[in-house]
């Protein structure tokens, strides 16, 4: 499509006619991103409509930045990286990245989006000690060295490192991306370097914050969508100040994509997010109060969702969940108490626990047998998958499990047939869960019954997410339950960092993760050889060639399958996704995954559109 062929959006027509808004051709970049529809059920659509969806707390409006998924580079449905906001990018040896912007691209307030926005971020935000006491984020640092940032011209920026930084581009495509640009024209008024001191002081006083840095931080939130004044590049812009119980996101008139018919995206005029108690989300979907919903729905809701389909005009799709395991047990290798610590570190114990779980029973009792019984590893859909990763030590075998435990010397039993430790205490695992629904505790209950047959007790402890984490980080929790690998379908060019002790929030080895994360300032160095090996492999991956990367991934996955640092249960549980019958271009078969995938993000909600209502109530 060429400039003259663009079609004005009906919803904006009035503003354009009134001269408040420039016409569509002037709003789009010189070279907008042209969207082609190919594939089953995909078609160019028409403008209009309101997409209703539900969130369980105000803070969840940040998911709009995930669903919107406008990134410098994004991934397509096949997880391939492509320039999105950027016109193009030049990559030299994963070291030198030259980013080319789209001329004429504008922020949602109409101000041009230029290299200045990158410079401002780099010079005045990241490298301002008051705003960023910790300096640049980890993604910027390669062996402790930050990039050289050059502004080539208004449309070109270059980042270069002495050694490769392969994660740099990937970081741009994540569900929660590394935002390396800021709307400088807007934020400068809160920056001491640029703002008029008197006005700045007045603003500080008005907002009741303590100083300019706090004010800047308050206003600068590219991800959270909580500042209605902050210009954005996303398809929809938040128009409701929080707190509210209903957030309206209006279309971004300067969005950079068009379809082949010359219609500027997004098709849908506005997205309304209503804050709803989590337990009511299923009921509300059932009553037809959401047009697109996955969050807040779980497998056990499917039945009642199916029942409401005809009455309320939606379809319930079942997307496999993209995590490595629906629920994995994380034995805390850094647990503080003596006898248990040693036991948890004994691989025979972990294997016995895994062998002692009747995954088939779990699958049948809780998921109609539709899930896949597996370790916590990559999914079959991943190019890295081999069956051994999923099956090793995971077939139900209480006899072998008992043998393993006996071998460990845990032969003494008490009156109720539980094993007894040398110090006389009973062999019981306290498993902490932060799941407010009954799914995890039901599963744990089934596991508890299974483990009883191998003489191991299981106690369930309900906790808040935050408390659970805090306890794990302190080495105070023995074992926790959490979903498995975030990235269940990795490609070898994605970092295998989840598999190695890299960060504190890895519940199986928080101290070791913390150690790596802080560069040795806190935590403990990994002292299991396998963990050390994982760490070494992960570090090697960074500079390895593509083929080697694949080998590294596989080596790491093999270590996991053998060592069972986390104990998986079942994977590919179906996520019910409620989609209004009128909503087009939403995939019927897809994966529900945060990374990669950004949930709906890679399916591009800006391309979804509403078929006209047969009763002609189109739009609202």
């Amino acid at each position: 499509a060429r400039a003259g062929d663009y079609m004005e959006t009906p919803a904006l027509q009035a503003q354009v006619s009134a001269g408040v808004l420039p016409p569509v051709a002037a709003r789009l970049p010189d070279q907008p991103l042209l969207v082609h529809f190919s594939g089953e059920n995909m078609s160019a659509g028409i403008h209009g409509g309101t997409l209703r969806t539900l969130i369980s707390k105000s803070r969840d409006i940040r998911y709009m930045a995930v669903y919107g998924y406008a990134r410098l580079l994004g991934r397509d449905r096949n997880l391939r990286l492509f320039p999105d906001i950027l016109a193009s990018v030049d990559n030299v040896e994963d070291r030198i990245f030259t980013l080319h912007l789209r001329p004429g691209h504008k922020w949602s307030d109409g101000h041009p989006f230029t290299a200045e926005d990158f410079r401002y971020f780099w010079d005045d935000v990241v490298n301002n000690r008051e705003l960023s006491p910790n300096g640049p984020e980890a993604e910027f640092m390669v062996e402790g060295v930050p990039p050289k940032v050059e502004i080539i011209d208004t449309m070109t920026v270059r980042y270069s490192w002495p050694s490769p930084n392969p994660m740099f581009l990937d970081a741009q495509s994540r569900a929660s991306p590394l935002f390396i640009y800021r709307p400088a024209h807007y934020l400068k008024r809160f920056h001491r370097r640029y703002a008029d001191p008197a006005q700045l002081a007045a603003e500080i006083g008005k907002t009741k914050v303590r100083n300019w840095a706090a004010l800047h931080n308050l206003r600068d939130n590219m991800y959270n969508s909580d500042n209605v004044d902050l210009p954005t590049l996303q398809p929809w812009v938040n128009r409701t100040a929080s707190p509210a119980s209903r957030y309206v996101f209006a279309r971004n008139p300067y969005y950079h994509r068009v379809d082949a018919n010359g219609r500027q995206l997004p098709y849908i005029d506005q997205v309304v997010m209503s804050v709803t108690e989590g337990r009511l989300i299923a009921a509300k979907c059932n009553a037809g109060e959401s047009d697109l919903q996955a969050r807040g729905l779980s497998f056990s809701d499917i039945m009642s969702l199916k029942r409401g389909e005809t009455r309320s005009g939606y379809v319930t799709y079942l997307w496999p969940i993209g995590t490595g395991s629906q629920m994995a047990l994380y034995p805390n290798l850094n647990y503080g108490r003596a006898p248990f610590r040693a036991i948890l570190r004994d691989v025979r114990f972990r294997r016995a626990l895994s062998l002692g779980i009747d995954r088939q029973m779990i699958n049948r009792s809780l998921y109609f047998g539709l899930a896949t019984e597996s370790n916590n590893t990559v999914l079959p859909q991943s190019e890295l998958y081999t069956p051994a990763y999923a099956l090793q030590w995971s077939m139900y075998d209480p006899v072998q499990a008992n043998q393993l435990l006996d071998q460990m010397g845990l032969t003494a039993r008490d009156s109720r047939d539980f094993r007894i430790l040398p110090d006389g205490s009973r062999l019981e695992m306290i498993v902490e869960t932060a799941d407010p629904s009954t799914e995890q505790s039901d599963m744990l209950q089934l596991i508890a019954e299974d483990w009883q047959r191998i003489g191991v007790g299981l106690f369930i402890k309900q906790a808040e997410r935050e408390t659970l984490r805090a306890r794990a980080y302190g080495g105070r929790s023995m074992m926790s339950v959490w979903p498995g690998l975030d990235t269940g379908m990795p490609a070898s060019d994605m970092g295998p960092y989840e598999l190695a002790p890299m960060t504190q929030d890895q519940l199986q080895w928080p101290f070791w993760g913390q150690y790596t994360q802080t560069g040795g300032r806190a935590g403990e160095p990994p002292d299991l050889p396998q963990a050390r090996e994982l760490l070494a492999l992960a570090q090697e991956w960074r500079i390895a060639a593509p083929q080697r990367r694949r080998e590294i991934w596989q080596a790491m996955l093999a270590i996991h399958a053998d060592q069972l640092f986390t104990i998986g249960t079942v994977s590919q549980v179906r996520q019910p996704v409620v989609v209004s019958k009128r909503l087009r271009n939403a995939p019927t078969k897809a994966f529900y995954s945060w990374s990669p995938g950004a949930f709906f993000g890679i399916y591009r909600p800006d391309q979804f559109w509403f078929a006209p209502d047969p009763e002609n109530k189109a739009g609202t």
Partner: protein
Amino acid sequence: MNDGAPDPLPHFVSHAPYDTGRDISLTASAAPQWRLVLQKLRRRRMAYVSGLFLLLVYASLPFSEIIAPYALEDRNADYLFAPPQAVHLFHEGEFAGPFVYAYKGVANLNLFRWDYVIDHNRIQPLRFFCSGAEYEFWGRWKADFHLVCPDRNGVLHLLGTDRLGRDMLSRVIYGTRISLSIGLIGISISFVLALLIGGMAGYFGGLIDSLALRLIEIIRAMPELPLWMALSAALPVNWSPLAVYAGLTAILGLLDWPGLARAVRAKLMVLREEDFATAAILMGAGPGRLIGRHLLPNFMSHLIASATLSIPSMILGETALSFLGLGLRPPVTSWGVLLVEAQNIAAISSYPWIMLPMAPVILVVLAFNFFGDGLRDAADPYR
């Protein structure tokens, strides 16, 4: 109109036999007061029946294991969300003893639901005084004796099963034990404290009253919600869930007394001014006796009403705790736990039998209430 004097009254003298001693037709009775109350109670049918019902329920508590057809932890993965079975007596027109028809679950993958097909040709007779699922009597002795059991190869789910295939009837029976026994701890604590503190404050007044009132205020204003949350983080998990629950009800009781205490105090401030209170003081009654024997009985109606009202709140208090992740943990089962599990749209729309545990709660609460009413009336001197 005649304004004059009325007709003179003729002088009447009764000639009926006159004896100074009075003939008393009443039976002599010097029964103690509680016996009188009991007598009167027996004449109130509703209250009496309620009382007997409660007695029966309480008497059954020690034998939950025997009464329940299944053991607490029994689970049958082939019968998930199975609906209640009806007990029949006649099969194809012929008496076949109490039996149920066999049924079988089929996964319906269109609607994601278990459909059960009843096999009208296979009858599964109930067995009585039989050996069935194995259990540990009072968590101690292994046994398998039951009042009623399913057919040897059959199942018996008179109230259906839940999502994990556990027999609802058995769970309700086990839940009764917990809910009715431990829940009373809370009420007792709350009542004892309320009567003690409210009584002292109302009776003594002055400094004691002031102190008690401040204490009440502080406890009332105490943020319960965060307190529970802090507790949930602090409680050791491998405490037996029962101990946790008992502890929590105790705390519920500890936090619950101020309302009643204020009411008691207010009422006592009035009652202590009554002459009969003064009379008791002049007889030498100490504060304890005066409050307990003279003043509080005059507040009995309110107390009884409060007690019958506390019972549901104690039984259900646990559901609120579960909401905060603090209630009983499986496998221990109480009515509260069962009700919490019923709290989802699926149960309401598709598996209504999951909500059946509401029935015993309502029954027991009503029984307590009617019993309380009867007791109130029986203790009322004006009736």
